[in-house]
């Protein structure tokens, strides 16, 4: 796979079809892979990498890169491709300046997930037939990739690429039996007290590093409301539990109907806050109330929050629907 991608990138760079390539670059260790812009064949040959550890979604970089002279080649996993499609819909990226190569994906892992299994002191990771050979300071381990998949990959929603110029590998389909809403449903079934306690425990760990916001392909505002002193709600660090809640409610609300559920927010959170739950709650509500909608599925789709029907449910549906009442 990696060799095919390198070949494609070099071919397109040499032919002048593209001016730069967005891909992943080798790290200090085998797992700390950085998104990178390659502008020469030498760089690609030396540093380009693609494997099961290439988690970062590259689409957002196009907002910046595609404004440069010439076309930008981007490699897209299916979920990254949804993000790009949504960015094109929102006119944040101009389709003509992008050369999109879809790549098949069987799920990604990352160092955090591996380390959470108790594997520490990793010095080397090699991959063979879906099995990771992990060498550590304290002995070696063999772990199949499927055992250390990221949550978003365990609950993969689609292996299809809504936007691409060409594909490497096979095109997949939407995953019908995706269970990504199960956890949301589980929380919905709790009492308000339990839900409150659950989210307080999660959100109180927030250190307001803004990684979730800055990595989000849907958060492309030039100036965020939370950075705008004139907005009256600008905050750098939550001084109060209220501010933690406010930041996360508003962050999720601002991407509601536009979030493609790429899971980057949860991936980057240094405190492992399951931020995707908030986004998924919105997606689940939208699906249930306004019909199934998947942001980024088709370019030009109208987001459910910029749309309406005369017979939409009234907000009091919230009082009647699911969940236990106040005890």
């Amino acid at each position, binding site marked *: 796979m990696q060799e095919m991608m390198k070949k494609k990138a070099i071919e397109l760079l040499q032919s002048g079809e593209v001016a730069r390539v967005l891909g992943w670059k080798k790290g200090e260790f085998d797992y700390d892979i950085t998104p990178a812009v390659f502008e020469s064949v030498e760089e690609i040959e030396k540093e380009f990498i693609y494997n099961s550890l290439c988690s970062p979604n590259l689409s957002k970089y196009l907002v910046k890169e595609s404004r440069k002279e010439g076309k930008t080649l981007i490699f897209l996993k299916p979920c990254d491709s949804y993000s790009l499609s949504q960015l094109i819909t929102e006119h944040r990226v101009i389709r003509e300046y992008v050369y999109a190569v879809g790549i098949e994906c069987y799920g990604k892992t990352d160092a955090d997930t591996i380390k959470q299994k108790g594997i520490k002191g990793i010095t080397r990771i090699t991959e063979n037939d879906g099995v990771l050979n992990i060498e550590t300071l304290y002995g070696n381990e063999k772990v199949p990739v499927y055992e250390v998949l990221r949550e978003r990959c365990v609950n993969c929603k689609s292996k299809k690429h809504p936007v691409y110029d060409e594909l490497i590998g096979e095109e997949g389909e939407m995953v019908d039996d995706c269970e990504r809403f199960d956890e949301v449903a589980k929380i919905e079934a709790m009492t308000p007290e339990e839900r409150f306690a659950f989210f307080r425990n999660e959100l109180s760990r927030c250190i307001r590093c803004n990684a979730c916001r800055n990595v989000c392909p849907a958060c492309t505002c030039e100036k965020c409301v939370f950075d705008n002193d004139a907005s009256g709600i600008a905050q750098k660090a939550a001084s109060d539990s209220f501010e933690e809640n406010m930041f996360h409610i508003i962050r999720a609300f601002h991407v509601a109907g536009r979030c493609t559920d790429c899971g980057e927010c949860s991936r980057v959170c240094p405190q492992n806050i399951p931020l995707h739950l908030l986004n998924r709650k919105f997606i689940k509500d939208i699906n249930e109330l306004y019909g199934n909608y998947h942001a980024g599925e088709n370019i030009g789709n109208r987001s459910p929050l910029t749309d309406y029907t005369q017979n939409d449910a009234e907000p*009091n549906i919230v009082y009647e629907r699911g969940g236990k009442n106040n005890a």
Partner: protein
Amino acid sequence: MQMVNNEFKPKIVAFCCNWCSYAGADLAGTNRLQYPAEVKIIRVPCSCRVNPMFILRAFQRGADGVIICGCHPGDCHYTTGNYYARRRMTLLFSMLDFLGIEKERTRLEWVSAAEGQKFASTMNDFVKTVTELGENKRLEDLRCKK
């Protein structure tokens, strides 16, 4: 008359659209219909002007309940504003509920300019609900408490 000290009087913020609900509130007033003085009305051009942030900020600043009133669907002065507001508020209320914040503290009602009676009864009912819930504890900013 001296109020009984421990009696809880909720603070209610009502965002009323300029064209229907605010006029409805006016009508309630001219008709001398009673509704609690704890309701503080904020006039907005349209119910869809209400940003989720307004609601959160109201809670931060000490509101115990927030109600949004707009024209009946189909009657919006700007044709479609309240349809958008309806979707947004539905999702926002649902999210607040998801986070375990009492859903009864937020409400959206359609009140036309002719419905002074409905305005008064809606407010009476909402104040009653919030009074029963008690003080807003889950979405409060401790710094703003005296």
